[in-house]
């Protein structure tokens, strides 16, 4: 399958990319790893007139400790997140979740910034960043702003990111000592999650249980009030509106969310 023809620019800096975005607005798309964008362009579900290639901008690729947070450049590939020693020590949940994305070839191309920007509620990393209580750093010619991930998503494939903004960084608190776990239920190897549950430090992020990645707030509140893992996990699907598709019915997903939350909380508690 061949995408519709498009013009191509490869700016040599983030500033260059922002200038192009400001000039071309919604006719342009930035391409990072291209592993969400190129497949939809090949299916001709998207036909941007201009591709702004940011995949070679090394200034967007880093993982570093910054105060009590870890800062991750938006262009950092899944494979780098997976293998990062900094993350293994400071936010091991994120590295473990990155390891479950697609397959090695996908992880050699796809980026954390692309994953968050794409805003697919079936993606793994957004729910992990949500459980971690992370922040998305956006930049445009108008300036830089930080948006808590809890306020970033507005619906399926949509977020508060403006067309002239780039995600430049993702920040997550250092949670090295806290119990964590990721439970991803798939039908086949390298599939997307039917449902996924990320747990860290008593917070629970849900994959594919609604229009956006969600926190299992009822479970979190029950835990904080001293409920048992079994009782708290039984509330994991409260307030969710899971999709219904070939991989499962709504009720099946609700069941999975409760079961996987119980498993994840048990693992995170050292069980």
């Amino acid at each position, binding site marked *: 399958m061949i995408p519709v*023809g498009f013009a191509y620019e490869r700016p040599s800096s983030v500033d260059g990319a922002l200038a192009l975005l400001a000039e071309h607005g919604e006719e342009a798309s930035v391409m990072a790893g*291209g592993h969400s964008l190129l497949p939809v362009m090949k299916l001709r579900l998207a036909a941007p007139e201009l591709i702004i290639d940011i995949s070679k901008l090394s200034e967007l690729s880093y993982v570093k400790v910054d105060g009590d947070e870890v800062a991750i450049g938006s262009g950092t590939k899944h494979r780098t997140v997976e293998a990062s020693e900094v993350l293994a020590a400071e936010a091991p949940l994120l590295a473990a979740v990155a390891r479950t994305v697609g397959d090695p070839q996908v992880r050699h191309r796809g980026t954390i910034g692309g994953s968050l920007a794409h805003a697919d509620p079936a993606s793994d990393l957004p729910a992990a960043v949500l459980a971690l209580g992370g922040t998305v750093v956006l930049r445009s010619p108008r300036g830089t702003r930080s948006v808590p991930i809890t306020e970033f998503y507005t619906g399926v494939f949509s977020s508060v990111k403006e067309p002239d903004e780039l995600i430049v960084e993702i920040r997550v608190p250092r949670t090295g000592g806290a*119990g964590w*776990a990721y439970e991803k239920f798939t039908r086949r*190897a390298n599939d997307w999650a039917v449902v996924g549950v990320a747990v860290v430090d008593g917070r629970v992020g849900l994959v594919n249980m609604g229009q956006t990645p969600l926190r299992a707030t009822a479970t979190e509140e029950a835990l904080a009030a001293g409920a048992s893992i079994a009782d708290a996990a039984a509330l994991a699907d409260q307030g969710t509106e899971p999709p219904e598709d070939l991989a499962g019915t709504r009720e099946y997903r609700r069941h999975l969310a409760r079961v996987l939350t119980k498993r994840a909380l048990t693992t995170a508690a050292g069980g």
Partner: protein
Amino acid sequence: MTVKVEITVNGESTSADVEPRLLLAHYLRDQLGLKGTNVGCDTTSCGACTVLLDGESVKSCTVLAVQADQQSVTTMEGLSSDPENLHPVPAAFRAEHGLQCGFCTPGMVMAAVSLLEENPKPTEKQVREGLEGNLCRCTGYHNIVRAVLAASGQDPDKAEGSEPDVVAPGFSTGSGA
């Protein structure tokens, strides 16, 4: 619109004016005539089109040729110096009967080369997980896994069933601490 690309392929510099929408797989097959890279699904699923981009496995049906500009690509053709002197991975595929029709083989071999680069002594489970981006409709995978273990210098009969120390996706798997 065309864009000039310069890509080192199997150690030789290549260059062409290409449309931005040209896929790396088509650059290799149609522009350079390197038909060892197969296109199967064309949807990033089967792995038949896997090549190395700066040493890492990628699916060349989902990379634009312009994105590989100034980088280096290795295909099946570039692995072995001649048919009598095979690279250890294809040699092991031959010795262990790791192929039947052979359609998946170039992608399997390139994915395995990348896997062994990142993890030179994988367990059997790690080989299976490391090849999860590659589908084979013929072999049932068993001899492919044996071939990769053999290429890593391990005895496939002894390595089989070794410690599953990395947790990866699959049915209801989890990890945590």
